[in-house]
């Protein structure tokens, strides 16, 4: 901060060491670690992330190779199952296990890209609305209200109908749908922070508007934003899978979990496992992320920390 220029440079870590107080990060981690569910969720999601990263090494087959000799092969625990296709094959002879493994890559990619794009745009628009005010604020707020007025999936359907169904357009559609949450959150917390004394102090010290918003106000709005971002990943994965299920998301050979589910619907009577497995993958990923996000929220919230 400009006000303490004259003081010797002391990082918050050093200060904490001297004062014997935990740094914000270590306090957060200590609180997070106590929540067994959250730690479990984090370890599951880390495992899924590792699977996604090393999909080429783990997956026994290519996700798009069709084994014509083994269409709809049963999984290993079923009569006639073989180790060649541990989780069986789907209606086109794709190896289900390999598709699920590569699907982790697709789903995490969707979740993370939606999250990061809406995070960045949300921060920019939210800070803009809060700092500039007047007309800019009104326009941004109204546009976000409009997006919120259209049910999320209907909005996504409209975007996909215009742009055409594909993985990239799924990301665009879901980003648009989830943008208002970030913008509103940033705007609300920034407006709250702007009334506080330290902001006035920074202003008096001559901090410019850009620096004021980005390096003075923004760090104080981050906690709820990070929680929102974590939970936003699971929402984005669900939404994208929903679009895929409706045939409006990633298109067939892409091993997207929702698309896999949609393609296997016709086998619901004959080969239920083809339907059951992709959905289970979605559920596990979403539950793990939600557990982690909830744990983060509790760890950030000092009121919850004490109890």
């Amino acid at each position, binding site marked *: 901060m400009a006000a303490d220029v004259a003081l010797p440079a002391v990082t918050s870590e050093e200060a904490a060491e001297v004062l014997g107080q935990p740094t914000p990060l270590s306090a957060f981690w200590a609180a997070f670690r106590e929540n067994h569910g959250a730690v479990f969720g984090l370890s599951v999601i880390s495992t899924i992330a590792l699977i996604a990263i090393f999909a080429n090494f783990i997956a026994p087959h290519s996700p798009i190779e069709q084994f014509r000799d083994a269409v709809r092969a049963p999984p290993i625990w079923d009569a006639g199952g073989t180790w060649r296709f541990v989780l069986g094959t789907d209606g086109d002879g794709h190896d289900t296990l390999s598709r699920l493994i590569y699907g982790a890559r697709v789903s995490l990619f969707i979740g993370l890209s939606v999250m990061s794009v809406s995070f960045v745009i949300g921060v920019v628009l939210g800070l803009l609305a809060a700092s500039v005010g007047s007309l800019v604020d009104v326009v941004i707020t*109204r546009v976000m209200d409009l997006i919120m007025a259209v049910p999320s999936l209907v909005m996504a359907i409209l975007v996909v109908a215009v742009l055409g169904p594909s993985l990239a357009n799924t990301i665009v559609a879901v980003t648009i749908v989830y943008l208002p949450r970030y913008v509103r959150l940033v705007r609300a917390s920034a407006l709250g922070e702007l009334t506080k004394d330290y902001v006035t102090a920074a202003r008096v010290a001559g901090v410019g508007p850009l620096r004021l918003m980005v390096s003075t106000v923004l760090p104080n709005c981050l906690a709820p934003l990070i929680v929102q971002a974590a939970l936003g990943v699971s929402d984005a994965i669900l939404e994208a899978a*929903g679009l895929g*299920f409706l045939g409006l998301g990633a298109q067939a050979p892409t091993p997207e979990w929702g698309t896999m589910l949609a393609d296997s619907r016709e086998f619901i009577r004959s080969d239920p496992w083809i339907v059951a497995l992709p959905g289970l993958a979605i559920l596990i990923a979403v539950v793990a992320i939600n557990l982690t996000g909830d744990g983060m929220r509790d760890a950030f919230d000092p009121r919850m920390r004490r109890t």
Partner: protein
Amino acid sequence: MIVYFLRRLALTVPTFVALMFVTFVAIRLVPGDPVEVRVGEHGISPERLAYFRHQLGLDLPVWRQFLDYCWRLLHGDFGVSLSTNQKVLTEFLTLFPATIELSVCAMLFAVAIGVPAGAVAAVKRGSVYDQALMTVSLFGYSMPIFWWGLLLIMFVSVKLEWLPVSGRIDLIAYYFDQPTGFMLIDTLLSGQSGAFLDAVRHLILPAIVLGTVPLGVIARMTRSSMLEVLSEDYVRTARAKGLSPFRVIGVHALRNALLPVVTVIGLMVSSLLAGAVLTETIFSWPGVGHWLIESISRRDYPALQGGVMLVSTVVIGVNLVVDLVYGAINPRIRHGR
């Protein structure tokens, strides 16, 4: 009071105008010739093209087209569906009761189970029951409902044959007029024995599927809001007065704890309609969501445009009513901003 009503009403106007603008722009951005997109014919002759261009007003300047579009919308003209040649508004109105029926039943299911379950969890905080309920609710609001629906069909309908797979009623066994469009009411009015029961049997699975996410959210909300209320002084007073625990929890605590829950339910209308799109697709439920998806696969853009417009208008309307009711009940909201 009136000032608040008018201010809140005025706030919806720009949202509505922006919505008209977005749907207007969206259909123009659809790739392909605008006439073909709207008329649904491909490779038509230049004369016919010119005829339709004039007929549809596409030869006018864009701003004029937009104003015409708004003018038509404000007069209740939401366009004509390409696939059925019916007015979009008429189609929407015939299908909407099915969606309302499904959504209301899903919400009743969610509230009837979620509120008591959440309240008990708060009272028995930290118990096995509490932890089990929180786990179930976590799975509830994390559920990919399209998969959940397929699983239920697989076990309950296909394997156990307890409930029907799809639709609103057995159309072969029962035939009757539908004056209201609400199957539960129409079957009762028809007086046919067994028809009402059949409609209920068709409704159970879709309502459970659509109600699953709200159930998880409501149970959690009720629990946390109950926890807050239970530590309030007036609950302690009620206990000290010697009231029975049931009365303290059921009347004094729960009534106050339900306020934020009701708020959440009000905000859920939009996500409920989004969930209805998936639920109706799985169960071939002839509602608005199913219809929107069908319109896309048939490339029926006018129906899609009008449908999105109408669904969003409903959401804006409901949110408006919810806000106005809050304003009427709670003076703090009225004078807040």
